[in-house]
């Protein structure tokens, strides 16, 4: 089962290596890992999708919290949250097929960002299943290239935290 974990980490060299190394050393499977800045220049946010059962998720969370440069860890296990993945995909599109594909683009509220004679690059963002659905639909045309950011996630308004644990460090 996939779980989304969000970790606020100190924006310092070696943090990514530390987190990635911990995952590798303990045999956890990472489905995706996204690192980006936050509103505070001293902190970055890592959004990690891990595969495993609840017990694995709990261990991942606790082990993440033990990494000295990890400030805060949150899993979205029981939380109502928004997740987004973004993709750039270059699809094989001959001029005759353009209207068809553009219709799909429209329907998915995606964007054609580059068109040349035999291909079209589409930008699409949304929850993972939407992205997957789009890929399925354009696959018959032929996919030249595809790049995805991986999931970022954030809890919906009101209570600031999901099952947040802060600094359970030893």
């Amino acid at each position, binding site marked *: 089962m996939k779980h989304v974990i969000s970790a606020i980490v100190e924006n310092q060299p070696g943090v990514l290596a530390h987190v990635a190394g911990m995952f590798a050393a303990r045999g956890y499977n990472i489905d995706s890992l996204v690192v980006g800045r936050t509103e505070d220049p001293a902190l970055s946010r890592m959004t990690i999708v891990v595969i495993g059962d609840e017990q694995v998720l709990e261990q991942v969370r*606790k*082990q993440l919290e033990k990494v*000295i440069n990890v*400030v805060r860890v949150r899993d979205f296990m029981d939380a109502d949250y928004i997740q987004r993945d973004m993709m750039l995909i270059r699809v094989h599109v001959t001029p005759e097929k353009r209207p068809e594909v553009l219709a799909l683009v429209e329907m998915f509220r995606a964007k054609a960002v580059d068109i040349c004679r035999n291909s079209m690059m589409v930008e699409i963002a949304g929850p993972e299943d939407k992205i997957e659905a789009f890929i399925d639909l354009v696959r018959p045309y032929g996919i030249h290239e595809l790049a995805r950011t991986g999931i970022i996630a954030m809890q919906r308004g009101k209570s600031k935290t999901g099952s947040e644990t*802060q*600094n*359970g*460090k030893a």
Partner: protein
Amino acid sequence: MTQEQQGGQSADTSGFIGHTGAKIFHQMLLEEGVDIIFGYPGGSVLPIFDELYDTPIQFILTRHEQGACHMADGYARSTGKTGVVLATSGPGATNLVTGLATAMMDSIPMVAFTGQVKSHLIGNDAFQEADTTGITRPVCKHNYLCKDVNDLGRIIKEAFHIASSGRPGPVLVDIPVDITVAKAEKEPDFSMSLPGYKPRGGRGNERQVKLACEAINNAERPVLYVGGGVILSNGSEALRAIAQKGKLPTTTTLLGLGAFDETDPLSLKMLGMHGTAYANHAVQQSDCLVSVGARFDDRVTGDLTKFAPKAKIIHIDIDPASISKTVSVDIPLVGDAKCILEQMLPYIETKERPQWHGQIDEWKKKYPLAYKAEGNIKPQEVIDQLGKMTDHDAIIATGVGQHQMWAAQFYGWTKPRQIQTSGGLGTMGYGVPAAIGAQFGNPDKLVVDIDGDGSFSMTMVEIITAVRYDMPTKFIVLDNDYLGMVRQWQEMFYSRRYSGVAHPCPEFTMIARGYGAQAAKITDRSELADGLNEMINSDGPYVLHVCVEQEENVFPMVAAGKALDDMVMGELI
């Protein structure tokens, strides 16, 4: 390279501006109260060694960086202080890895300093360059690469804090050589702003404490299962108070040996793969198992699915990640072992539980640890006699293998910080340097390394370190000409196909004398008492080479993957 004029060193840390990195290093070590450094010099730490030229800190030159690391470890375990190691870049740093991993697995406070090539050469495959922080990251609690001399003071302060607080562990600080000669332009930031590090120490949740005590009071067959955490938190006295007040049978892990006096009638001695049968049976029959500062290691639990099946499990640990990692816990208590035990004491009721104690006494009578003092000298009797002759009071180090388990079973542990042994990582070669490190921390105490011929051979070069610095450490080599523990497994599980375990030994006494130590070799039982006596009463370092029964096995034994009470007992138990 211009060095600051070296004058009288003092712990004056009022000013860092204008000081070189090397001087700041020295100032910070004095500030942290470091009185001994174990290490080995090299090109990229030359400025640091120059600074140490007339330092009041004792510098111990070992013969190998691994030896330095284990000495710092033995020093830390036996004194409770943070061990300090210093090595050069590249091979100096990589030679520390085993020692760091050993300390990490057993939660030993240590700070390791390594030199690094000049900052601008990092990544260029420079001479004696290694990605030290990359290599040591998984075997350290934390590590730093200092890239600015203005950060060095802060980093060293943080390193000592992280190493010794919460669940302790090794922290490594990698310092490029140009940083050690650069001069600071700013005072270091000592605010200790570590937003990601707030160790759980101190007291446990009061409600959970009451809940735990209630469970213990209501239990008919309670058992305390005690690990190294109790020793690390100096909680032995609190443990004794609880055990005696509640009349709670108490067993310890290998690292917990000495946390509870084995001469106390409540003691079940060690549990686990080579634990006593009565400890293992008690755990399996228990209806309330209280783990204090232990982590349900696979060598303790045996088959997890069959572990303590009837017990409500209470787990006291400083590390939340240890809770429910392998065994699902009913009542977790996060905090410092000593604090929580003290919190619990008033709630613990005195209960007789005659049936439970009767059952345990029966097991103790039925399955005592045993050996037969016949034929060749038995390794167990050497340890048994040593324990009696030293009043169970010596500091003991061990290597890893059969001799380690016999030491655990037969010495008779009475005091915390008495055993120096690599439990988690199982590092052969740990014994010799760890014993010497413990001796440096306890110069007036009797320190004995009980070693096997395999482990001893790995690090015996450090005997010369004991000789050089007048450390009267004793070394007993139980020599069976085999890598005994592996041989035992091959005998039991691989139809006696002894593969790669024959281990013919040199004349250890000649080697020892070559290093300048006293030495004797004994092969017959009639020489044993006198041999031990002479060793104990000798002035300086002493190697006692004891030729023992070659194919003796460690029993009881829980084979890998078996339930804890599914033990191979041997013929004598």
